[in-house]
């Protein structure tokens, strides 16, 4: 007991001493500000800023919105095991940030409760449907990943010389299965009977598959060794390994989310990125904030970004797919017109 008391005392003394040194210096705040009343809260998915993909794309959208509307942004990343997602949203709403944008479907678990607690704040969530969550002050920003992936499948099927392509998914979740389903449908539409390998790096519940380049490299290398010559990845940070495997085997790969031809540093890797399936999170976020500024956010609804709104698409950087652009555009038009309905599950 005395042990306990002494330990407590020592601890509190140390902490108190810390605090008293603070006076007057503790209120340094450095939020990036450029005038205006708009206070945007941005809560990232695991990985946070600097992932050169999903989170960065959301930030780019916010940045563009601030450029045109003024205002400031506060960005928060979850802790290592992402157990504090609710705290991030609560803190942002508490500090008067409005709208609050949650990046990633993982927030779907907690954002409903937080939205209920702060009825005067507008929330948006990327990749999750409001229908699943049910809140009037929440907007779901959805993407038709299967449509963009369909075009990636078309491009791969038209470009393969071995009639054999592959798909590497990060984590076996319903979201990534949409990528896979579209890719398969597109490849089979362009070249019936094509051989397609498919694998996921980790099963549902183990999110390391989104951030494990070594696993991505092994999976893709296996496909290249087995005769595939183009591999499409929907594996976040693990995609780097897919590119490395492609470079090592002198084969090609298809990137995802952002135009990875432009975001990857290494010219050797750049050369293997045939195209990228673009998921314009930035456009969706910018449009949402624009609507919010114009007081046009209905809430309780989903905004779906698909080929017709250019929310998804295929990158052309590098010029590797210029020769088949006509055929891709043809499929694109058929999807937009509704002549082709792309499945979301295999």
């Amino acid at each position, binding site marked *: 007991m005395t042990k306990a008391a002494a330990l407590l005392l020592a601890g509190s003394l140390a902490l108190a001493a810390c605090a008293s040194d603070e006076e007057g210096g503790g209120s340094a705040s450095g939020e990036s500000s450029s005038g205006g009343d708009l206070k945007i809260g941005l809560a990232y998915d695991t990985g946070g800023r600097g992932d050169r993909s999903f989170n960065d794309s959301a930030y780019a959208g916010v940045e563009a919105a601030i450029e045109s509307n003024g205002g400031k942004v506060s960005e928060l990343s979850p802790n290592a095991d992402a157990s*504090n997602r609710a705290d991030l949203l609560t803190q942002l709403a508490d500090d008067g940030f409005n709208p609050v944008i949650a990046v990633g479907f993982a927030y779907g678990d907690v954002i409903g409760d937080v939205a209920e607690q702060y009825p005067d704040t507008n929330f948006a969530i990327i990749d999750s449907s409001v229908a699943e969550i049910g809140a009037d002050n929440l907007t779901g920003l959805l993407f038709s990943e299967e449509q963009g992936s369909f075009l990636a499948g078309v491009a791969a099927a038209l470009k393969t010389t071995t009639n054999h392509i592959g798909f590497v998914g990060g984590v076996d979740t319903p979201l990534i299965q949409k990528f896979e389903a579209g890719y398969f449908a597109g490849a089979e539409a362009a070249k019936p009977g094509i051989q397609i390998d498919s694998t996921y790096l980790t099963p549902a519940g183990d999110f390391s598959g989104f951030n494990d380049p070594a696993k991505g490299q092994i999976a893709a290398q296996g496909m290249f060794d087995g005769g595939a010559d183009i591999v499409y990845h929907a594996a976040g940070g693990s995609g780097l390994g897919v590119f490395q495997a492609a470079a090592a085997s002198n084969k090609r790969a298809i990137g995802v989310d952002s135009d990875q031809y432009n975001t990857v540093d290494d010219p050797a890797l750049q050369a293997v990125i045939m195209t990228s399936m673009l998921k314009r999170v930035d456009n969706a976020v910018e449009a949402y904030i624009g609507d919010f500024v114009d007081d046009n956010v209905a809430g309780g609804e989903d905004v779906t970004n698909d080929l017709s709104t250019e929310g998804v698409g295929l990158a052309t950087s590098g010029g590797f797919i210029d020769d088949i652009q006509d055929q891709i555009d043809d499929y694109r038009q058929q999807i937009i017109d509704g002549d082709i309905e792309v499945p979301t599950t295999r």
Partner: protein
Amino acid sequence: MSVVRRLGPALLAPVLAVVVALVISSAVMAALAVNPFDVFGVMLDFGETPGQQITAMVVIVNRAIPLFLSGLAVAVAFRMGLFNIGVEGQYRLATIVAAAAGAAVTLPGPLHIGFIVLVAVVVAALWAGIVAVLKVTRGVSEVISSIMMNFIALGIASYLLTGPFRGSPEGASIIATADIPESGQMPGLNGIFDLFGLANPPRQLYGFLLIAIVVGVLIAVLLNRTRFGFDLKASGMSPSAASASGVNARAMVIKTMLLSGAVAGLIGLPDLLGNTHSYTTDFTAGLGFLGIAVALLGRNKPFGIALAALLFAFLDRSLVPLQIADYPSSVVTIVQGTIVLAVVVANEIARRVARRSAAGGTAAPSGGPTAGDGSTGAVPTPPPPGSTDQRQGAQL
């Protein structure tokens, strides 16, 4: 004075570790041109209104509960010299089975919760038991087998979640087990805030806190006041001496691993019973590994582990305000990492100091395997690391 002298060795290592970690991280922050004192100020700022302050404390305590249980599970095995790295797999598997079992039955309130807890404890204990059986029958190192068992457990948990235990509709972005019905959900403890006339925060204080405290006390009593606890610690300090005095080493390994696993089974329950009510693809992972650090910092003693868990939870909570104030949140990661490193170093220093003071006086070693007790012996020279440590502590 005698109190200080008696507690000195026990307190030395953890305090030294925290101080060293603070000094190192301050140096890193200074190198990044960030004023460390400003950062510590933000970390200690719990908000302006009483409501915010209570919320912050609830967040910390809620986070500390699973860390405490995890640290406890690791420590039980540690005290006997067993390194149970399999806590991670044990609690993940236990939580998903308990979630599915809890959703499948309907029982009156407390009985339902008791059933879920029992399922979790049994599953985790059996899973840990495999490691023990492998060790006593085939001589497989528990370090290796428990790490391997983690992968198997995670694989099984994924299979169960996406297969037989799936309760979420097809196509939902988050895969989850079916929700545990109302009777199996554990009410929060927010009533006590009203009782003391404090602001009632929007966040519920987990009711599992009470169970965690009871478990902590039980483990402390078991370790310090029973024959089993004595055998366990004796086996940890000197296996040969223990078995010479009639302790059945094999039975001890199995019993200890079962106990460690049983405690591990509780780790996921505060969240499951008090918050999520289902196991999802996003269920908090990694608590089993954090428990190793918490147990190290708490020197494998229940009370120390509680403090260590609170410290880790406090650091974790400060991630949010730090980011709001535009400080790098990696500061917290650096502090946590350096604490763990410093603990290892500090434990060794404390052990040497204790040994030297024991050699100088006539003190008999007592307490933990690394802690000496210098209360009856005169300390010949003041331990140099201790004195610097105290000075640094005062400055901070």
